[in-house]
């Protein structure tokens, strides 16, 4: 995972709240952090984007601070896949700089599968399973899908090709990135 991470200070600056607030949020499960081997919290870029999206993209406003201060309900681990997050631009993000985000289209799995127009029911079912895996990985290679499912290579290839053909994912150096958000 070569995801960009920020330290707590940078994250707090971007979100317009204090470091302590973020620490508290992490404790109650409102903030997903990556822990360094030394046990320090690092906030993935995706997480910042998600929080900003949740707060209606308002930055450093009183409302934002209030949203962050209120203790969120403890997140329950659900069986559903996490929604697909937008992946930021490749250029490194300087602290204090707001990344240009494109809010992805939100579609249900049924709508996405319909767009991909599978020829038969088994293929439809396979696409559905692969989509769930793809949404979980967000960015993936066809090899990763092959490892995580037991479907034949041909099916996976046609799945990936169709994602790109229908403008549902982008392809860069063999890595696919979903352009849509999966809603349940």
């Amino acid at each position: 995972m070569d995801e960009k991470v920020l330290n707590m200070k940078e994250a707090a600056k971007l979100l317009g709240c204090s470091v302590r607030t973020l620490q508290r949020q992490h404790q109650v499960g409102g903030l997903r952090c990556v822990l360094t081997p030394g046990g320090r919290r690092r906030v993935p870029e995706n997480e910042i984007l998600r929080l900003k999206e949740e707060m209606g993209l308002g930055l450093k406003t009183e409302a934002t601070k209030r949203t962050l201060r209120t203790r969120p309900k403890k997140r329950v681990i659900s069986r559903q896949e996490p929604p697909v997050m937008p992946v930021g631009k490749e250029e490194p993000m300087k602290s204090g700089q707001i990344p240009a985000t494109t809010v992805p289209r939100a579609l249900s799995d049924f709508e996405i599968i319909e767009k991909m127009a599978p020829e038969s029911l088994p293929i439809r079912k396979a696409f559905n399973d692969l989509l769930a895996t793809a949404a979980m990985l967000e960015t993936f290679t066809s090899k990763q899908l092959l490892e995580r499912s037991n479907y034949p290579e041909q099916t996976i290839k046609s799945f990936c090709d169709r994602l790109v053909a229908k403008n549902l994912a982008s392809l860069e150096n063999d890595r696919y990135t979903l352009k849509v958000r999966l809603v349940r």
Partner: protein
Amino acid sequence: MSEVPTAPVWPNEDPFLLVAPTRPDTYVRVQPDEIAALKQAISNGRVAVVTGPLGIGKTSLCKYIVDELMNESLSTSDIFKQIVPVYLSGAAYRETDDFLKGIIKGLALDANRDRVALFNILTSWPKEHTEKLAAVIDDASESGANVDELGEFLRALADVENIAIVLNGEPKRMKKFLDLNPPLRDRIQTIIELRQMTRDELKEMLTKRAKTHGVEDYISEGAFDELYKLSKGVPRAALKAASRAFELAKKEGKKIDRTIVKRANRVSFWGRLFPFLRNKRSKLLQI
């Protein structure tokens, strides 16, 4: 046969992790005749039941069947031979309607409709689809749904042509569940009771698992004997014991042999005397 006395290089990941096999090549086909009968029942659109004691591999069998049916359907272009399996984990559903939704969602069809419309999709299945449908319901008897309702729903499904149902559950509970639903019980065509593995089957399973991490040479024959003795042929128990042996062997940089297995799975004198104290004691020790 003299073994080279080099310290084995153990991988970080536990090859005997307690999960249903994610790859079909790690699955051991026990009772192949009965599995064939199960597949026959599915392709005929009947009701089949899989039972067996805890940890015997019921869920693994279900997942394996689902994978196999899926791959067969994907490789054939004959739409009359295609079977679309839907795997549902019964214990996760609280209502009969959820089962209905689960089946429709599993097929990637539009589930945002009322229950009558959804049920109509299933009842008109043979008219609108040539493919067969197989609903594989894991832990069917453990679901929180109303037993009468669920039984009635399954009975209605069983009557639809081209829809097969595989129910899977612990024998006692399954019997109770079916006793409450005599119409459903009468429609069962095949009942498969999974039995314990033999030593060779157990060895095959553990070797296959070890192979995925390239450590199949690190386990001696004596270890297989001991694991078989400890687990009494129950795959889940064997994997657990093997997992413990793996941890110990990794720590000490040794290969897994009889002594390692024994030491890793040793139960203290008091634990043996009072088996019911075992969990409590270990919990107390953890704190």
